[in-house]
């Protein structure tokens, strides 16, 4: 199902054909440039992510997609340009501070906590919402236990949503790849993010797993209204999922728009589509 109704020309909210409300930009990247020593990973890129939409960043290997995601969640700090988040200029923050601002992500190479169970992994996603002090936790009285139970209830809803009830107590190191990806998505969802970043959520999956993952991503977007920015290799998947697509190549932006617009963009075809036959 393609979402061809996305509009790129308006700053106001609008309603898509499938009934979702897309709001104004929640994040705006303005003239971002990122260098590693002499290597330019990202060169003067601007784009925005609107509230409630699924935004994709695509491009061939080494185009700078992952670097872009790392800039968004504060792991790298760009040398030039500025980032507007919820209408304000974002100062250079530490990654954990950005997590507290409501940006959560998954990783290309799964970054789960291997020594912990599925449940505990997803519970770590709730850490930004848990505030009781050490003394209360040490005694396990009152607030600490109440907070634990409330957050556990929230996490159980995510576990139900992702259909991973049966592996709740299994250490994640023992799970197959596809399930690990799902747990990682669960951990990011547990944070109730206002912006969810997905780094190649379907990399290395078989067709069935890809379909499952696509369904979860769409459900997250539709049911919770979560804004999603994702990087993907697989063009066909992206075209079905995304409202709007940014195309990168060699650190530069070469296209931006609805899947249809991007598909018919000559620069994109030359750089990417022309060589891909997915």
């Amino acid at each position, binding site marked *: 199902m393609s979402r061809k109704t996305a509009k790129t020309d308006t700053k106001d909210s609008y309603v898509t054909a499938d009934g979702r409300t897309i709001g104004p930009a929640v994040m705006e990247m303005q003239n971002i440039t990122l260098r590693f020593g002499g290597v330019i990973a990202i060169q003067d890129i601007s784009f925005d992510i609107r509230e409630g939409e699924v935004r994709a960043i695509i491009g061939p290997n080494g185009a700078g997609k992952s670097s872009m995601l*790392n800039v968004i969640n504060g792991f790298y700090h760009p040398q030039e340009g500025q980032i507007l988040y919820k209408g304000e200029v974002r100062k250079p923050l530490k990654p954990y501070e950005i997590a507290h601002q409501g940006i959560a992500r998954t990783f290309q190479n799964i*970054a789960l906590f291997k020594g912990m169970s599925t449940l505990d992994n997803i519970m770590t996603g709730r850490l930004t919402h848990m505030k009781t002090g050490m003394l209360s936790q040490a005694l396990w009285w009152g607030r600490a236990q109440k907070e634990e139970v409330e957050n556990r209830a929230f996490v159980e809803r995510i576990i139900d949503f992702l259909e991973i009830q049966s592996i709740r107590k299994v250490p994640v190191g023992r799970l197959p790849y596809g399930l690990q990806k799902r747990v990682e998505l669960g951990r990011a969802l547990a944070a109730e993010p206002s912006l969810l970043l997905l780094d190649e959520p379907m990399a290395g999956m078989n067709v069935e797993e890809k379909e499952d993952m696509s369904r979860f991503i769409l459900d997250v977007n539709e049911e919770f209204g979560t804004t999603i920015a994702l990087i993907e290799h697989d063009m066909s998947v992206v075209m079905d999922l995304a409202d709007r697509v940014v195309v990168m190549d060699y650190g530069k932006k070469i296209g931006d728009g609805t899947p249809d617009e991007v598909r018919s963009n000559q620069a994109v075809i030359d750089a990417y589509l022309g060589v891909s036959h997915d």
Partner: protein
Amino acid sequence: MPAEFYYGVEVFLNGLMAGVMYSLVALGFVLIFKASGIFNYAQGIMALFAAMTLVGFQEGQIPFAHLINAVFGTEVHHFGWTMPAFFAILFALGVMLLFAFLVEKLILKHLVNQEPIILFMATIGLAYFMEGFGDLMWGSNVKKLDIGIPQGGNFWIEENTAFLGGADFYGFYLDTLDIYATVIAAVLVTSLVLFSQYTKTGRALRAVADDHQAALSVGISLRSIWVIVWGIAGFVALVAGIMWGSKSGVQFSLSLIALKALPVLMLGGFTSIPGAIIGGLIIGVGEKMFEFLIGAPLLGGATENWFAYMLALVFLVFRPQGLFGEKIIERV
């Protein structure tokens, strides 16, 4: 120039000599770390064990004599012969090679792909095992080690440097043994570098150090490389054990001196042979000079116990990659 200045210089020179000793032990660490990514805590005990074995062969001790006596009520101690130093060294080397083989067979083989910190802790266990084993085999008494290297102050240097200072300066006091140690260390390092640059095995070693997977894929046997590396480290331990043992007797404290090699490595980096040498010299000179200038007059002395570690700690906070390491770019 006042005499204090020359004493300072003497302390500096002695620090360099001590540094060479540290470097010798550190060298063994670097070899193993490069080839297998293992931080071998047991390197110090290996030096002690090698020295004990050497003395045991030289004096014709019966291995496990104490245990045999305790179990069977006998009174055996020596075979009754003594062995020339040269053959004793050869035999001790043989034991260290056998040890390398066993370590690979019994421990390393089972710990492939474990976290570095697990391997590190395993070598602490190995160190404990060897300490108990060595003491059971050769007894825990302090032993004198003498393979014929001259010891004591070097008169030639003293006489020929006395003119530098005034009437109360008698020339630099340097131990002849330390000078020998320096020369031997230099020879050892040169031959190791030549070995790794110009032999087939050396190339394989460097390949493994660079990338385990890639080395495997071009047909290098990781396990035989490990045996070779631990064998070489055993040889280096033997040399270090001979030097340290000649200097201060073969005893447990020898393995604690080897602990000092750890800060040396943190300064010099774990993968660099020149780093180990320079790090050793910095630590040797640094702790002697600190004791001379600040420790003894102001802090009550014995700062050598901790100075090396503190220096490494402070240094690492500002430069986590060591002196020669490259800046680490973290990735997700």
